[in-house]
């Protein structure tokens, strides 16, 4: 499954300033591993020691928060767009 990942500015130092990268993965968990494979070191920014996504990070698959889907087990299909967005304040 080829998916497109939108990388937030703070993580672009891992991706040679690329704002978007294409990767193969069938789930969000697999995608996180694939990112680490391509950009060593990025995983420890995204996840804590237990492998859980950090609580101030939001991950969306085609604009839907994965917490409304199947969290890190959310399946990915060809052409899906995944965005990683640090939490922001509101109003």
């Amino acid at each position: 499954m080829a998916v497109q990942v939108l990388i937030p500015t703070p993580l672009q130092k891992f991706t040679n300033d690329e704002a978007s990268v294409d990767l193969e993965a069938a789930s969000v968990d697999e995608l996180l591993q694939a990112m680490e494979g391509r950009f060593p070191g990025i995983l420890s920014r995204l996840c804590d020691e237990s492998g859980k996504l950090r609580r101030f990070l939001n991950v969306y698959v085609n604009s839907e928060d994965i917490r409304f889907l199947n969290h890190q087990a959310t399946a990915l299909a060809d052409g899906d767009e995944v965005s990683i967005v640090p939490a922001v304040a509101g109003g």
Partner: protein
Amino acid sequence: MRLDSWRTGSSPGRRQGLNQYPIPRLGYFHSHHLSLLASTYRCASSVTAILSRSTFIGLRCKECGHPYEAGARHVCEDVCFGPLEVVYDYDAIRSRVSRATIEAGPTSIWRYREFLPIEGDPIDVGTGFTPLLRANRLARRLGLKELYIKNDGVNMPTLSFKDRVVSVALTRARELGFTTVSCASTGNLANSTAAIAAHAGLECCVFIPSDLELGKVLGTLVYNPTLMAVKGNYDQVNRLCSEVANTYGWGFVNINLRPYYSEGSKTLGYEVIEQLGWRLPDHIVAPLASGSLFTKIRKGFDEFIKVGLVEEKAVRFSGAQAEGCSPIAQAFAEGRDFITPVKPHTIAKSIAIGNPADGPYAIDIANRTGGNIAAVSDAEIIEGIKLLAETEGVFTETAGGTTIAVLKKLVEQGKIDPSESTVAYITGNGLKTTEAIASSIGEPFVIEAQLASFNSAWERAQSLQRATWETVG
């Protein structure tokens, strides 16, 4: 150039956005060249005190404590993605500020400028120092002895507490060299950003959900910014804006300027202390959307205690949400310290944030202070708006209706003691959300310009009023 502009280090990279005009600003180039020198001085507070009127040192991750320069950044990018917060030199503040210096300052948030993260002259549009009303009639109705309304519905220039955060954010945006400012907004923030950007001569492009109340939309458009009405809820607007912020070099008040923006809400804490005669209340009730305002009122109280401006005392913090969007109240009720996001469905659109970034901190404060976080229905919110208007002559929007309805609920549940001095924060103006109450209030008597027509209408009015009394009992 001013010496103080090179102390806190700006971030030149953020400025190369697509729509940024390449207009060099003198201070910016100098600050860039001298940033190395400045970092040498950064730790020596005696030196910085001479160099600068500003009292803030830099940014720090609220989660892991990692330090950052005071540029346009909002998350802990080197370690944990936690939110960044401004760090101050409290010794410098203590040495410069007293009750007397504050009282001699302008009647705006800038009387507290030493506690705010700016270096030079503020954008002062008269924001802040709004009335603190002793609300005796509402207190009697609820069964409280000492109740106050902090009325930011009459804040300047756009009638909500957001003018505080935006005045700070745009002052800082200008200092960091931004020429275009932006925000993701549930309505009030867009009003405020557009208005204060107009005053400061900044380009402005703001984003709102497309289903907002007319007053909120007009109250932005009149300042002639570019307004993007996004088909989606606030959380979707926010996600879009985070992506825009990644690619356009704009100053987003609630994204890359968030550490500065959020500090503006501390002034709601300072003002209440000062207006109560330099003392703390026993209990406060405030609305929660992202949870930022709530946590910053707390920070404001803590800072005044820390520098000796007010005597320490326990203050209970209670938060208000609408049932149709209550992720923080739900987590609080279930004893969780993490938030499960929700999709908002409520008339309280200004506080309809389904994925509140500061939710965990708000829960922590409510727990640690012995407060509560409660939610009320849309019907209760409307009753809250009417109750405040009828008893105190204050017309608030849905967020304020939520606060009053939660205040009432907490008193009824025995969670606010009648003897506690209590402050309810009213954060927005009712004229912006007239749709919410239009079908729940009376109608005018339409009459001829003749005494007879008035006489019979008056009689009808009297009997209607008698009927209301009878049903009230």
